[in-house]
């Protein structure tokens, strides 16, 4: 492929159109983006500008209408459904604004979920889960259920779940959007550490300038296109 060795994410001429009845909604147009390995990229922009949509395309959760998405040399937009699912399990960690934990599972079992898809034994899974919960500083809360945890703690569980498979790429959609300043800062510190100390490549969508300040680069999205400047 024509992406250089250091380019992990390569989005080329991507267009994304949703169809709502007879109406076509152009969400992304002429989208080009390169994210080098090891970058902590922040994506900002007004609501409805297409940030989540772009993140979904990079994470293989959705497919572009036109253009290509290449991650570490793989044309993921061309992968059949089954292979794409396997690719996600291996390469992508996802962190959401509302944590998206399963309420019926304890913290450790939530973190274990992505490992169910691997060939790891039960003991190995437990080991990985413990490591991930250690990294996010929640080793004392492993048996707790999501409803008994604070928002910040739930998001730590969410991050532990995202990193437990040691993915190539971490995608975070407004990870601090539902948290107060203090918890938000802790989460951002954690992401920053993952980026700096563990070399994780992170793409993070955020509305919060405090959050984007932690990133190594910030891009602004407006009406489905990148704009050079921060829009007013």
């Amino acid at each position, binding site marked *: 492929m024509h992406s250089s060795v250091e380019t992990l994410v390569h989005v080329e001429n991507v267009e994304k159109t949703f169809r709502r009845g007879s109406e076509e909604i152009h969400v992304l147009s002429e989208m080009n983006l390169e994210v080098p390995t090891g970058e902590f990229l922040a994506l900002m922009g007004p609501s409805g500008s297409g940030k*989540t949509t772009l993140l979904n395309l990079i994470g293989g959760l959705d497919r572009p209408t036109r253009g290509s998405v290449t991650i570490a040399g793989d044309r993921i937009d061309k992968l059949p459904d089954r292979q794409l699912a396997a690719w996600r399990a291996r390469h992508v960690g996802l962190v959401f604004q509302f944590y998206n934990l399963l309420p019926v599972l304890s913290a450790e079992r939530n973190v274990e979920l992505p490992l169910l898809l691997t060939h790891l034994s039960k003991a190995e899974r437990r080991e990985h889960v413990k490591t991930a919960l250690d990294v996010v500083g929640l080793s004392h809360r492993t048996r707790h259920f999501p409803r008994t945890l604070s928002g910040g703690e739930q998001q730590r569980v969410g991050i532990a779940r995202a990193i437990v498979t040691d993915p190539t790429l971490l995608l975070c959609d407004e990870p601090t959007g539902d948290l107060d300043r203090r918890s938000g800062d802790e989460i951002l510190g954690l992401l920053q550490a993952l980026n700096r100390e563990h070399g994780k490549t992170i793409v993070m969508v955020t509305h919060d300038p405090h959050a984007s300040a932690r990133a190594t680069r910030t891009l602004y999205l407006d009406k489905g296109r990148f704009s050079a400047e921060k829009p007013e």
Partner: protein
Amino acid sequence: MKYVSLVWSNLRRKRLRTGLTVLSIFIAFVLFGLLCTIKEAFTAGVTLAGADRLISRHKVSLIMTLPESYARRMARIPGVASAVHLTWFNGIYQDEPKNFFGSFPVSDPTAYFDLYPEFLLPTEQEEAWLKTRTGAVVGRSLADRFHWKIGDRVPLKSPIWPRAAEEAWEFDIVGIFDGANRATDTSGFYFRYDYFDEARANGKGQVGWFVVRADDPDRADEIARAVDAEFANSPYETKTEPEGAFAQGFVQQIGDIGAILMAILSAVFFTILLIAGNTMAQAVRERTMELGLLKALGFTNGLVLALVLAESCLIATAGGFAGLAVAWLATVGGSPIPSVLPVFFLPAKYVAMGAVLVFALGVVTGILPALEAMRLRIATALRRQG
């Protein structure tokens, strides 16, 4: 295997709803087991009839008698291997009308037990019977019902056949026969015709019906016609038919049990289908985000489909197998009304049918929600949040 606890956790989410659904399936399968047992009890005689046995009775009615001498004439008809006669005795034990059971004088003990190979009588007991004029042979379930043992002397009264000497009839139990399988009716009481005929006050020489053995089961119908032809235009004309048809006639007097039970069961299962189907539909709908998340994590569409199906099958098996087990336990103790339904058990074929129904219920109630879960688009499912 590692996904089982995930399915299990989901079932515990709405414990009351899961519990009520399991309970309703449980009740449906208890009902299924009991109704199948009852159906079997009513039709046991029909399905177990030997193909080579014909019943020959008075042409007008079963309650009218025939001359004893017919036995010899029947035996001479080509194709007839043997002919044994029985009479409805209607014996009552201890003057208690509810202590009622089938009791019959039999013309030829040896020939009779040859006719019914499903009655297992030890040889030495059969020999004892031939030696004991007042001897009686009873089935296992009847012996158990009244705690009779070999050597017991049992007095019976018959409203139809008073004894010439007026006191009760007395019988010595000389044998107890077992059934070759569980569907064999072992509630009968058999005694010797020579004793009976000599001691009865009236109707000497008159007997109830004949069991005729055809030497070729394939020619049974032809032989039945030959028997009836032999006695045509006599004062005692006969009606001869295969034993299965004879028993069928009995059952049809009660009504078509099978059809009634099928109607009840269909209604029950239709209701259960709606209840369990609704539970699964709700379970999937309220979990849209979670299912989307599993897919985002890399769970394939097929795996998500399987997880939802596993859930509905688990609900169905929990309730269904518990219900079948309880129905089986309830019938294993024997008949609650042995005088009416002597054969009373849940046959293995209905247990197997129940098991198939359990899985069918699980799949049918789960398949639509499972397909819905499978088709869910990740991006859309994850947006439905906050």
